[in-house]
């Protein structure tokens, strides 16, 4: 863990490259505080939406402790925001499971889901249509296309079988295509 006396650009950073291989990618992780400064407030906001104001703080602590645990071993630093939101999302699911409630009140899913990749903007036209979908379809679409979850995990998040998750996703996508056509 302690890498005493290594400097930027030391040969030590590049030891994984085979001789002559072109491997310019060196993971440089920013100070963890930078992640807090830039994303903590948004993570808290999303968690308040997902689990309610009262329980958001617990999920927030769990999210960032899990992130700290994994941080030094991360081998990519390109989408740390997305990575944090993925962890927050899982912690929200854990929270709902632990409480024995039906996981993921769907109103929050699209909101959470939109944040990680940043690509489908929450306010975009498509997402307005997604928000208008029936709850199950809406959650399935959000989890699949914004959180990039596989069917099995969508099923876990929604508390249904993978088959049912696939069906919800399919129905949701069909409806979106129809409305966008």
């Amino acid at each position, binding site marked *: 863990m302690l890498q005493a*006396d290594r400097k930027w650009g030391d040969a030590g950073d590049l030891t994984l490259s085979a001789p002559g291989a072109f491997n310019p990618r060196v993971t440089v992780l920013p100070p963890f505080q930078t992640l807090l400064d830039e994303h903590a407030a948004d993570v808290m906001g999303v968690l308040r939406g997902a689990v309610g104001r009262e329980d958001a*703080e617990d999920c927030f602590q769990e999210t960032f*402790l899990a992130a700290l645990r994994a941080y030094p071993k991360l081998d990519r630093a390109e989408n740390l925001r997305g990575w944090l939101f993925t962890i927050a999302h899982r912690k929200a699911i854990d929270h709902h499971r632990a409480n024995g409630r039906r996981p993921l009140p769907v109103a929050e899913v699209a909101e959470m889901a939109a944040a990680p990749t940043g690509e489908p903007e929450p306010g975009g036209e498509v997402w307005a249509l997604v928000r208008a979908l029936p709850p199950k379809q809406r959650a399935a679409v959000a989890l699949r296309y914004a959180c990039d979850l596989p069917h099995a995990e969508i099923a876990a998040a929604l508390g249904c079988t993978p088959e049912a998750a696939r069906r919800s996703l399919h129905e949701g996508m069909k409806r979106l295509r129809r409305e966008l056509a």
Partner: protein
Amino acid sequence: MKDALHRLAERAGAEGLLDVAYADVDSPFGTLLVAATPRGIVRLNLPNHDPDETLEELAARVSPRLMEAPARLEEARRELDLYFAGRLTEFGLPLDWSLTDGFRMRVQRAIAGIPYGQTRSYTDVARSAGNERAVRAAGTACGSNPIPIVVPCHRVLRSGGALGGYGGGLPMKEALLELEGVR
């Protein structure tokens, strides 16, 4: 939000997930940044040097698990306050020498032993570090001291008494020596 972050820093520390804690500490010279690992103070950034650069250096060279955690630096703040008030002559803070090694570290450890209100020459500290002739290297070691003030490189002068150099600027070196009743 602020409370949540404080609690996070506390829990991270308690669970061994906080490798470097840091905090700002006011001084008569401007804001210092003090950073500590669980072993002790590892870095002190003087006001004339960009603290963000120092944090990035710590993330790269010690650990990226680095968070602002003032509660973990209370003792450092207390001792520094007393020192600047002229009421503390010997720091009791544990030190972490991770950011230095070899001859540099031997020089810096020798500097740590120079008593309050006294000065040594670059030749003296080179000798204490085991190589009397490495005076230039001793000068470089002073210049790369990761924990200035606490490791009092301001007490090292040129033979003959000229000030030599200081990372925080010569006026600061002079002021620290004055505070300690030298010059």
